[in-house]
């Protein structure tokens, strides 16, 4: 049985401009120990999907579809029961370690909180567990960090504390939403290594959300490319990176600057991400796609197979793969 099953998940948010369809018809299964990466530009619905899985969507959001965790239908749970799942069976690491920790509580108090809520440990045991968690995430001299306030820690240390907090109750699914985006490049690698290590050590399943293709390529087994709230390409990470199928994925890839290519203008994808409140009919990427035909603007593309377990939602897949103007880079 899969740890997490997501079935036709759709999230709509009321906005001034109308209903923003932040997530559209996303389905997937996550097996125990599997790692899934979700990649896309800002505003493509990645974070909303994470919040939907946590049951923490903003008020007024409309959520449809099914979320099943270990056979338990999360959608059927009331708020009280959902509170027992959050931070316990499914935990999350957020993007901004600077603002995601409470400035007036010590690190220890914040890490021990989920333990006291869910684990049933006594004060002393929970204290000991907190210290060992802090040590595990690389905060050596855990007693000092236990009593420290967030402002006394660096960004990397704060993110380590966030990870300790998320790990505390041995969650089965860990969601990391841009965990390294706010950090220095040198620290990014360390934090990614830490996440990778604890995930494999504890046989957790991981959903890693990032706009950074490098981060995704290094960390996850399977990758989803999201655009305009929907998945446009998915497959095992090596396959996707070897054969970029969807024109959007190709563009995303071409936009990554390469060391050793000399000075050249950075390549970009023309246009901007469509307003989620005003998505074009047909293929949402059509307006920015050099291969778009008339049919692309009227017909919604289905997922088509590109290889084993690898598929993309594009009506002009053959042309895209043939021209593959940016080519594969592996």
């Amino acid at each position, binding site marked *: 049985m899969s740890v997490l099953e997501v079935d036709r998940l759709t999230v709509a948010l009321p906005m001034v401009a109308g209903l923003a369809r932040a997530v559209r018809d996303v389905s997937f299964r996550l097996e125990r120990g599997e790692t899934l990466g979700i990649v896309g530009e800002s505003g493509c619905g990645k974070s909303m999907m994470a919040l939907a899985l946590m049951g*923490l969507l903003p008020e007024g959001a409309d959520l449809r579809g099914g979320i099943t965790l270990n056979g338990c239908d999360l959608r059927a749970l009331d708020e009280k029961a959902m509170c027992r799942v959050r931070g316990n069976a499914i935990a999350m690491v957020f993007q901004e370690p600077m603002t995601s920790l409470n*400035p*007036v509580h010590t690190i220890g108090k914040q890490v021990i909180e989920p333990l006291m809520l869910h684990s049933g440990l006594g004060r002393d045991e929970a204290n000991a567990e907190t210290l060992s968690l802090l040590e595990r995430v690389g905060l050596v001299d855990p007693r000092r960090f236990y009593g420290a306030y967030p402002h006394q820690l660096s960004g990397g240390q704060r993110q380590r504390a966030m990870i300790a907090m998320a790990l505390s109750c041995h969650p089965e699914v860990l969601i990391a939403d841009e965990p390294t985006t706010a950090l220095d490049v040198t620290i990014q690698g360390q934090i990614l290594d830490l996440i990778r290590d604890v995930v494999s050590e504890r046989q957790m399943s991981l959903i890693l959300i990032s706009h950074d293709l490098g981060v995704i390529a290094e960390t996850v087994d399977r990758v989803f490319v999201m655009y305009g709230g929907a998945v446009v390409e998915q497959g095992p990470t090596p396959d996707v990176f070897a054969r970029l199928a969807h024109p959007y994925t190709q563009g995303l890839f071409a936009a990554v600057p390469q060391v050793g290519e000399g000075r050249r203008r950075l390549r970009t994808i023309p246009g901007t991400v469509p307003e989620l409140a005003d998505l074009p009919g047909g293929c949402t990427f059509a307006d920015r796609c050099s291969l778009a035909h008339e049919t692309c603007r009227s017909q919604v593309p289905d997922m088509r197979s590109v290889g084993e377990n690898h598929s993309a939602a594009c009506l002009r897949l053959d042309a895209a793969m043939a021209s593959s103007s940016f080519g594969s880079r592996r």
Partner: protein
Amino acid sequence: MSVFLAKRFAIFVATLFGASVVIFLALEILPGDPAYAILGADAEPSAYEALRRELGLDRPAVDRYFSWVGGMLTGDFGVSYTYSVPVSELVVERLALTVPLAVIAMALTVVAAVGLGLYAAAHHNTIGDWGVMVFSQFGIALPNFWFGILLILFFSVYLGWFPSGGFPGWSAGTWPALKSLLLPAVALATVQAAILARVTRSSVLETIREDYVRTARAKGLTRTATLWRHVLRNALIPVVTIMGLQFANLLAGTIVIENVFFLPGLGRLVFQAIANRDLVVVKDVVLLLAAMVVIVNFVVDLAYAVIDPRLGARDA
């Protein structure tokens, strides 16, 4: 932390010095001669001169300022012209009423304001929220002396639950004394609580949007637990600031309210002293009120450091 304390203490002393100069100058400039007030306008010139000498009013102003301040530093607060007793005795007696009155009023203010503010924020954009907002608007618009009179009419005259004024003294027992302070405290607290409830509400609403509140929810805390454990303390920082500022208003309010309820407190003392040109009492009591405001703000500064660990670290 000790640097923080030392700095605050220096500010405390400097403020009191400034206040003493302003008070002294204001009373020098204001018309009204205590000697005439005591003897009457048609007094004999010789008796008038003699009294002025006795009161020390014939000495130069700078002299008198320093003997006033010097006297206070050595515990000599002077003697009241009208009561002919040491001011310190008068004040201590009156403080036994005004301090409990201010403390009860402040406590009522905080409990009502934080309770209502939290409730309104937690029920943002519902009937409960709007109700709190409408009532607080009324509260802000109420003059406290008028509200005090309404309270007397309803609770003392109509229901007969509380005395309509006067103070039996603490020797008459704690409950009778408290009973006579309750209505004035409510009258004082209403306006303050109305303002503070609004500050609390908007501060809580702002804090709720913070990332760490989402983190707390992601840990599995319920909405209510998040509000108490993670939102409230962060939201209190601006609330405490306003509370400190309001304390000065509260003391000013006691002057009026003590007169409405015929309470022999500090406010009533200073009011009568002004009417009688009892300048020694006026100077001492006004300086004492200033000191109380400064001390409360000092306590507020200390409270910041307790609430927000970042502040203590920055200053020390």
